[in-house]
C-alpha cells in the first residue's frame, strides 16, 4: 500500500482563496430572489412597527359606535370592527407587539436550548440522561396548560409571555443542538483542546459552539414561525396581549366569533398579515442556509 491521498472532490470543496467567506455569502444572498422578497416584506412590517401611528390613516383606538362592522369601503379600506375602529390602522400599528414578543421569545428559547443542548451533547452519560428526562417531560406539557399556569402565577405582561414561549421552545431547540454537538465533539480539534488542558466550558463555548451555529440558525427561524402561532393560541385563552392593543392576535381572538355573521374582514387581514410575516422570515432563512452551505 503506497502513499495514500484521499482525492478531494475536484470542484466541490475548493478553497475560496481570495475573498473571505462572509462577503461571498453576502453577495450571493443579494442575488437570490427569495431573500430579497423576504427582506422587503419583513422591512415593511418593521417600518409599520416603528412608525405605525404616523402611517395609519386613523387612530387604531378611535371607536365609532355608529359605524360598527362596516365592510371594506373607500373610507375604511379594511372595513371596521365591532367597535367601529378602522381595521387598516389596527393592522398597521398591530405589528409592534408580535414583532417584539415572537423574536424575543424565540431568542430566549434558542439561548437556553443551546446551553442545555451543549451540556447534554458534550458531557453525555449521566448529565445527558438527567437533562434528557427533563427535556422530554417539558415537551409533553401542552402549550395551553403551561401558558395558563405560568400567566396565572406570574401575572400577565409581555415579559411573562416571552418567558412562557421561550421555556416551551427550549427543549425542542436543545434536542437539535445536542444532535449537532454529539457529532462535533468527536472531531480532533476537541481532543487537541483537551490535550492543551482546556476546561470544559472553554471547549463547549469557544471551540464547539461556533461550529454548531448553522443548525441553531435554522432552528431559530422555524421556531419563530411557531412562536407567532403560540402567541395566537395564548391570546385565544385571553392570556396574552391586552386589549385595546391593535395587536393582530388580540383582533383575531376578539373577532373570530363574528365570522359566522359574515364580518370576514375583521379576521382576514390580520391573518394575512401574520402569514406574510412568517413566510417572509422562512424565505430569508432558507436562502441564508443555502448560501452558508455554498
Amino acid at each position, binding site marked *: 500500500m503506497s502513499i495514500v491521498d484521499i482525492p478531494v472532490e475536484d470542484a466541490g470543496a475548493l478553497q475560496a482563496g481570495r475573498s473571505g467567506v462572509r462577503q461571498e455569502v453576502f453577495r450571493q444572498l443579494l442575488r437570490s430572489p427569495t431573500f430579497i422578497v423576504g427582506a422587503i416584506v419583513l422591512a415593511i412590517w418593521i417600518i409599520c412597527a416603528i412608525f405605525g401611528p404616523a402611517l395609519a390613516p386613523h387612530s387604531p383606538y378611535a371607536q365609532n359606535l355608529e359605524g360598527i362592522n362596516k365592510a371594506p369601503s373607500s373610507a375604511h379600506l379594511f372595513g371596521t370592527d365591532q*367597535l367601529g375602529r378602522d381595521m387598516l390602522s389596527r393592522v398597521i400599528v398591530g405589528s409592534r407587539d408580535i414583532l417584539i414578543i415572537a423574536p424575543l421569545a424565540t431568542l430566549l428559547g434558542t439561548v437556553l436550548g443551546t446551553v442545555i443542548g451543549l451540556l447534554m451533547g458534550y458531557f453525555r452519560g449521566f448529565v445527558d440522561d438527567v437533562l434528557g428526562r427533563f427535556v422530554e417531560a417539558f415537551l409533553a406539557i401542552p402549550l395551553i396548560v403551561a401558558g395558563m399556569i405560568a400567566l396565572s402565577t406570574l401575572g400577565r405582561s409581555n415579559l411573562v409571555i416571552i418567558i412562557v414561549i421561550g421555556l416551551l421552545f427550549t427543549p425542542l431547540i436543545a434536542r437539535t443542538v445536542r444532535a449537532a454537538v454529539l457529532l462535533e465533539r468527536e472531531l480532533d480539534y476537541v481532543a487537541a483542546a483537551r490535550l492543551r488542558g482546556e476546561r470544559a466550558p472553554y471547549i463547549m463555548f469557544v471551540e464547539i459552539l461556533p461550529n454548531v451555529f448553522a443548525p441553531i440558525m435554522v432552528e431559530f427561524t422555524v421556531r419563530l414561525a411557531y412562536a407567532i402561532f403560540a402567541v395566537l393560541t395564548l391570546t385565544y385563552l385571553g392570556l396574552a396581549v391586552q386589549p*385595546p392593543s391593535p395587536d393582530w392576535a388580540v383582533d383575531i381572538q376578539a373577532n373570530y*366569533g363574528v365570522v359566522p355573521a359574515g364580518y370576514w374582514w375583521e379576521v382576514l387581514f390580520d391573518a394575512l398579515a401574520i402569514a406574510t410575516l412568517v413566510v417572509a422570515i422562512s424565505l430569508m432563512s432558507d436562502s441564508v442556509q443555502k448560501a452558508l452551505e455554498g
Partner: protein
Amino acid sequence: MSRGNSELDRLREGRTELENHYIDELVFGNVSRRDFLRRGSMIGMSSTLLGAILAACGSSSKTTSAAGGTTTSSAPATKGGTLRIGAVTPAAAINPLTVSDAGGLLMLNQTGEFLVFDSNLKLQLQPMLALSWSPNADGSIWTFKLRPGVKFSNGAAMTADDVVYTFKQLSDPKNASNALSAFVGVLTPAGVQKVDSMTVAFHLEAPNGNFPYLVSSDNYNAIIVPANTDFTKWQTTFIGTGAFKLAGYTTNVGANFVPNVNYWGTKPLLDSTSFKFYASQAPMILALQGNDVDVIAQFTPAGAAAILNSPSYKIIKLPSANHRELSMRNDQAPFTDPRVRQAVAYTLDRPGAVAALLSGDGTVANDYPFGPRYPSTDTSVPQRTQNISMAKQLLAAAGHPNGIGPITMNSEIYQEIPQLAQVIQQDAAKAGITIKLSITNQTLYYGKTFGSSPWLDGTMSLVDYGDRGAPNVYLTAPLTSAGTWNAARFHNKTYDNLVKQYVAALDLQTQKQIAGKIENLLLQETPIVYPYWIDGLTASTPNVSGLNPTSIAQLYLNTASKSA
C-alpha cells in the same frame, strides 16, 4: 276608572287588608295592570280573582308580553318528534344542592318542579306544586297548601314530608348549598314545619315580603325531591315531579328526556327532548345555523349577530336582571371623593353601548340595582346621560383639574365584557380619566377571596351579574358594609338601614318609597356604575313553537312542539 264600582265592591269583600291595598293601588293608577297581577298573585290572590278584578276595572287588554316573541303560535301545535336543544355545558355535577351555573339549572328544571312558578311570560306567580299560599299578619310565617295527587316520576306520591325534607336540606349551612345565598338570615332548617300531609309552614327568621320568590323557580335549587334522597346520586335518576323524566345523561356530552307518565299536568306534545352541551357559545350558534339543533337555550347578544339580524330565526327576548357592575374602590384615592365617582358615571355613553354591544337587546341602567325587571323600582328618578363637561367640572371640583389616572381596571373575558371595557376606557378618556385594562379569563379574574382576587381587589373592576327574581341579593352582597362581594368597599350606615327596611317591607308602596331613597342615595354616592341591563335571549328555528323560557335560563318544554 270608577266604572263598575259595584262589581268591584263585591269582589272586595273577604279580601285581606293587604289585598285591598293592592286593589286601591290599581284603581288609583299607582300601579300598572301588569304589576298589579304580579304583586297580587305573589300574595296568594288566585288568577280567576285577579282576572275578575281587572275586568271590573275596565277593558281587560291582553296581557302584554315583553316586546318581540309571541307566546302562543296560531298554528295548531303538532304532536310528536324530538326537539334538539343546544345548551352550555353544565359546569359541575347535576346536584340540586350545589348547582350554580346556567347549564346546571337548565337540567334541574327539566324534571324538577317548584312550589311556585315565576314565568316571565305569564307575569304572575303560578301555582305549581303548591296550590295556594298565604302569609300571617306580619309576613313572618308563610303557609303553603300542596297540590293533591302529584306523583314523582317513579310513581311515589308527593307529600309534605318530601317538601319539608327538601327545604331542610336546602337551608342547612353544613350542606354548602347554593340556595344558602338566598336563605341566609331568612330560613333555617328548624323553620320548615309540616302542618299536615298536604300543608307546610315556613317560620322565617325575620318578616320577608318577597319570601314566595325564594321558594319559586327563581331559586333554581328549590326543586322538590322525595324525602331522604341522596343529592349526590340525584344525577343518575333526575327524580322529580315534572313533565319529563330522564332517558339518559352523559357528563359533558348531553342529556335526553322523555314524557313522565305520572305527570299531574297536561302531557307534553313532544316524543322526547335531546340536549347537546357546548363548551362555548360560538359552536352553539353555528350548530343552529347548520341545523344541528332546533333551539339554543340561553345566549347573549355578543357574537350572536349572525342570528339576531337574520329573519330566518325566532328570537324570544325576556327582560332580565342580567347586568354589569363597574365597581370603584371607595377606600382608595382618587375614588374616595364621590364627585370623582360621579364623574366616571357621567362619561359613559350608555345608549351607544347598548346599541353596539347588545345590538339593542338591553335597556340602559341608572347606577343602581333597580330596573325594568323589578316592579318596586321608583321610575321617577331621572336617568343619567353622558355629560362630559359635567364630568370635567366634578373632577375640577374634586381637585383634579387635568384628569386622573392611569388607573388599572380588572375584568374578565366573558361575553361582551372586553368590548364594554374598551368603550368605558375610551369614554372616560374624553374627560381626562386614563384607564389601563387588565383582562384575564374568568378563573383568574375571580381568584380566591379578598386579598387574592382581581375582581374584589381591583381599583376599578368590571364584573358580570346573573339574573335574580328580586333585587335583594344585588342590594346586599356588593353594597352593604358586610356584603360578601363588596368590591367597591362601600360602607354607608344609612344605606345599610334602608336595605334592611326594604327587605322587610311587605307591600309594594313602602318598597317603592324605600327604593326611591336608595336610588337617590346611590346616585349621590355612585360607588358602582351600572351601564345596562341585558335581555335574556332564546332562539329557535321557525318550525318550533310553545317554548317557555325564564330569564334565569330555565326552559320549560311542557308546551313545546316541532312541526315537520
